[in-house]
């Protein structure tokens, strides 16, 4: 199977991740389209035999960061600010809405780590390479994202500090 066919096969997974990342369908599909265009144009940079999915998610991550940056040019947000403009909650069931809202309120970089680990079921090492961050950063973002999500789903404020057992 050639790369073009494999790219086409990965489109549903890109759409799933994008939907969870940005919320509404149209914005998510715009992100997927930009990602596919960039990936198609940069396919010569993909090294054959390496993980095409990880490469594609790296492309999507870069495209997403650029899109968010462009939309923030006039309104720089802090690290911990939720991207409410980027991310509109969706869903019908109460639990889904809670989860979706909880994900929407996560800082973008924590959300990306959480989704790659849970949705894409990537290893921490793959997540680190996909996002271009150290594995320690992956772990701390994952830990923080989960604590926030757990607290928001339980309707409780986030615990001040995670207990870390040394």
């Amino acid at each position, binding site marked *: 199977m*050639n*790369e*073009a*066919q494999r*790219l*086409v096969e990965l*489109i*549903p*997974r890109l*759409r*799933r991740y994008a*939907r*969870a990342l940005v919320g509404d369908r149209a914005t998510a*599909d715009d992100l*997927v*389209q*930009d990602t*596919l*265009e*960039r990936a*198609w*144009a940069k*396919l*010569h940079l993909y090294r054959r035999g390496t993980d095409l999915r990880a490469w594609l998610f790296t492309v999507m991550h870069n495209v997403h960061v650029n899109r968010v940056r462009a939309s923030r040019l006039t309104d720089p947000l802090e690290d911990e600010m939720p991207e409410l403009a980027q991310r509109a909650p969706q*869903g019908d069931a109460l*639990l*889904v809405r809670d*989860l*979706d809202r909880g*994900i929407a309120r996560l800082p973008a970089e924590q959300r990306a780590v*959480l*989704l790659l*680990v*849970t*949705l894409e*079921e990537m*290893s*921490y090492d793959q997540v680190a390479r996909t996002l271009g961050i150290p594995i320690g950063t992956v*772990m701390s973002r*994952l*830990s923080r994202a*989960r604590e926030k*999500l*757990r607290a928001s*789903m339980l309707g409780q404020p986030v615990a001040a500090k*995670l*207990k*870390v*057992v*040394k």
Partner: protein
Amino acid sequence: MSEPVSDHDLQAYADGNLPEERRAAVAAWLAAHPEDAERIESYRRIGEEVRSTYHGVLHEPVPERLQRVIRSGGGRRMAMVAVWIVLGAALGALGAWQLRSMQPAPAASADAAAAMAHRAVVAHATYSPEVRHPVEVGADQEAHLVAWLSKRLGTQLRAPKLDGVGYSLVGGRLLPGENGPVAHFMYQCNRGTRVTLYVRSDMGANRSTAFRYAREGNVGVFYWVDSKLGYAVSSADISKEDLLNVANAAYQQLNPP
């Protein structure tokens, strides 16, 4: 328990990412620490909820606009890039053309073939970056395409099969040549690189030339003449060796021994 259990271990345990040898140690820790066990269980549930919440997206029909990006080799942004590429290639080709006109004229028989090669290069530079309309008739109507071009050129043409060297037919179009109609076939590899085959049928009888190579701008071209038929295989951005490989495959099918 050899090593103390860390938060990293607990996260990895929830994700099933923990090495076998650590799993028992963490399980023992969780048995003795119900608060951590409850936390890890909720992490696991969050994972399940996330997967079930977005699972449906995997089975939604993929919008046409997304499939088209891969099928057509790019979209709106690529179209802009393509415009710049074609401008660059056309300017390069023009420059090379002017340079050539200042050089001494080659032998008469080779001249017609070289002129054909120039036209083939310009046609390649013009049409190969086209995103929306690279061809007039697509490969899905190959039989019609070949019949139509054969009729217009007044000779039986063939679109060689180049899948063996990694290029599949995109389609073709009719072009105006120096003295009459020309057939133009376009092929594409899975990376989106395109190769075009330019065929004219008015080269004059009983004249054949060897395989020749020329390069203008970033477009390389292999061309040859077989009695009244002239062929040129052009591409930009692939090596001379790769292009030779493709041209050879075409040559062998068009001029069977």
